[in-house]
């Protein structure tokens, strides 16, 4: 660590104004503050410094994503072996397969996103913001395993530029960058982002695994949406894994089902969520109210289930475990930049995310994974909710002051 510090200190002068590597000042600065707590003091006013700066926050979010990531790797291998008709599932090989499948996608997403971020930071002579640290790992995790690398690159570039940088960079974006990437992919390349050919890897990865031809397996929600089930038993039977066996609620909770890379396992998401809550990074108000909203809407949908919308036969537990719902609730909705700021607003925002997610999923068979669109929609409304909460508070306090003045008219 000492040697590293010495190296950084020695390199610093050539990056400063007039140095020959000045063009890379923001890159150097980014690495420097990433490794060490900066030793600068504020120039004006009174500041309280906390060790919990945004770099540390981001790192904790990344750490809390690791259970989902590891499970995603295992699941990617598991689905592949299952598709190949294997009887035994060698643990380390499955994990290695998933690892080799996801690493190129993570690398592409980071290289493209950070590349743009570094360039813009240097161009505007600003510090590098660390927002992309989380976004970069979220993007591969919410995409199907078979998404081509160049699509991830295009979508990442699009959303980093048009959702983040044009609004002023990290902390100024209206919409969640990772979700816009997903939405861009979903609308731009629907054949590669939904349907029954993309959620299970069909080819070998750098020599691991084997080639499977004619493989089709949609996500459980995708299967259900096209099943035409007319009652609850048929609906439950229509959701099968790739070998054709029905999926139980326990499978859905554990996550050994086809789906986007990191979002199948509700269990791992909850472990990550617990870490976020214990460290106080995610708002429990939002997470709780997303689940509450989802549960209420699932109950309503289940109560008036019709064969027109097969997803309405799902029980509350199934609705909350399937698809990207839990992932959106824990990692997407509580994003501090794009969600509500006021506490009352957080309840309203979260509840509506849950309700809208289930509405889209249930009543629009074209978009079985509605959680993404629900969060984006509520991102747009978050400032309005905050505004109404603040205004209501102002009005309430004005009325209280007026009442107090009338009660004691002597002065």
């Amino acid at each position, binding site marked *: 660590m000492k040697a590293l510090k010495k190296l950084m200190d020695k390199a610093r002068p050539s990056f400063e104004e007039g140095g020959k590597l000045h063009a890379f000042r923001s890159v150097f600065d980014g690495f420097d503050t990433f490794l060490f707590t900066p030793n600068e003091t504020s120039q004006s006013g009174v500041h309280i410094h906390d060790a919990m700066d945004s770099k540390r926050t981001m790192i904790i979010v990344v750490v809390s994503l690791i259970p989902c990531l590891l499970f995603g790797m295992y699941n990617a291998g598991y689905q592949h072996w299952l598709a190949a008709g294997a009887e035994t599932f060698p643990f380390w090989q499955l994990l290695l397969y998933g690892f080799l499948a996801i690493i190129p996608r993570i690398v592409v997403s980071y290289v493209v996103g950070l590349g743009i971020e570094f360039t813009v930071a240097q161009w505007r002579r600003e510090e590098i913001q660390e927002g992309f640290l989380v976004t970069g790992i979220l993007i591969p995790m919410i995409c199907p395993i078979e998404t*081509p690398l*160049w*699509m991830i690159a*295009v979508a990442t570039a699009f959303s980093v530029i*048009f959702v983040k940088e044009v609004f002023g960079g990290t902390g100024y974006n209206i919409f969640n960058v990772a979700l816009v990437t997903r939405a*861009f992919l979903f*609308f*731009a*390349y*629907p*054949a*590669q982002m939904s349907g029954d050919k993309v959620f299970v890897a069909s080819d070998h990865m750098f020599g691991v695994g084997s080639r499977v031809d004619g493989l089709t397996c949609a996500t459980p929600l995708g299967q259900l949406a096209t099943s035409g089930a007319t009652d609850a038993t048929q609906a439950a039977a229509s959701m099968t894994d790739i070998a054709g066996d029905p999926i139980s609620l326990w499978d859905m909770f554990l996550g050994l089902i086809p789906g986007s890379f990191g979002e199948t396992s509700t269990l791992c998401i909850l472990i990550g969520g617990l870490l976020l809550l214990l460290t106080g990074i995610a708002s429990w108000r939002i997470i709780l109210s997303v689940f509450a909203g989802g549960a209420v809407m699932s109950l309503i949908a289940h109560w008036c289930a019709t064969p027109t919308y097969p997803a309405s036969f799902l029980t509350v537990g199934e609705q909350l475990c399937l698809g990207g719902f839990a992932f959106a609730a824990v990692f997407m909705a509580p994003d501090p930049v794009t969600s509500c700021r006021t506490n009352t607003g957080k309840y309203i925002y979260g509840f509506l995310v849950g309700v809208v997610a289930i509405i889209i999923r249930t009543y629009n068979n074209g978009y079985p994974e509605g959680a993404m669109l629900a969060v984006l929609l509520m991102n747009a409304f978050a400032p309005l909710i905050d505004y109404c909460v603040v205004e209501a508070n102002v009005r309430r306090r004005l009325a209280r002051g007026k009442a107090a003045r009338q009660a004691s008219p002597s002065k």
Partner: protein
Amino acid sequence: MADKISNKQVFFNPFSKDNPVIVQVLGICSCLAVTAKLEPALVMGISVIAVLAFSNVIISLIRNTIPTNIRIIVQLVVVAALVIVVNQLLLAYAYDVSKQLSVFIGLIITNCILMGRLEAFAMGNKPWPSFLDGVGNGIGYAIILIIVGFFRELLGSGTLMNVQVIPPSLYEQGYVNNGLMILPPMALIVVACIIWVHRAYNKDLQEK
């Protein structure tokens, strides 16, 4: 306009400095609707140039006899008549394109650029400058439409003027057309990019 500007400026200003779409932000609606392909965008641009030029001339000719109270109605009647002529011509000579443009030729009547030019220019200027103004603004509008249509068709369908330009070998390697480019929201983003580039080169247009 208070100070007198030359005919040359009247004609050339709308191309860039005073562009109706990217500076005055008028006519955005049709810009979203007709630019999924280059061909309809081109036809729409030509139609607007024709309607705008001739309605400007006609209104300019009768500007001193129009009662102020009903001038909007008179303007609308003139524009509507011209739009019907253009529509009939398209139906006769470019039936397929006119099918693609469907209602949007008719909606030239309500295009903000037309009303804006008639009110702002033709009502107070002689026929010849009005004609130049109409053609200039029409071309300014058409340029943007063509740029947007070019990118949307190229990236969304892989074609230009319905001719395949992205080689099939690229598709075999896994290239896929961007479906979002066909959808109207991308037209807004392409227009926004044009505005971005344009303002970057014209510093005096940048808002503080």
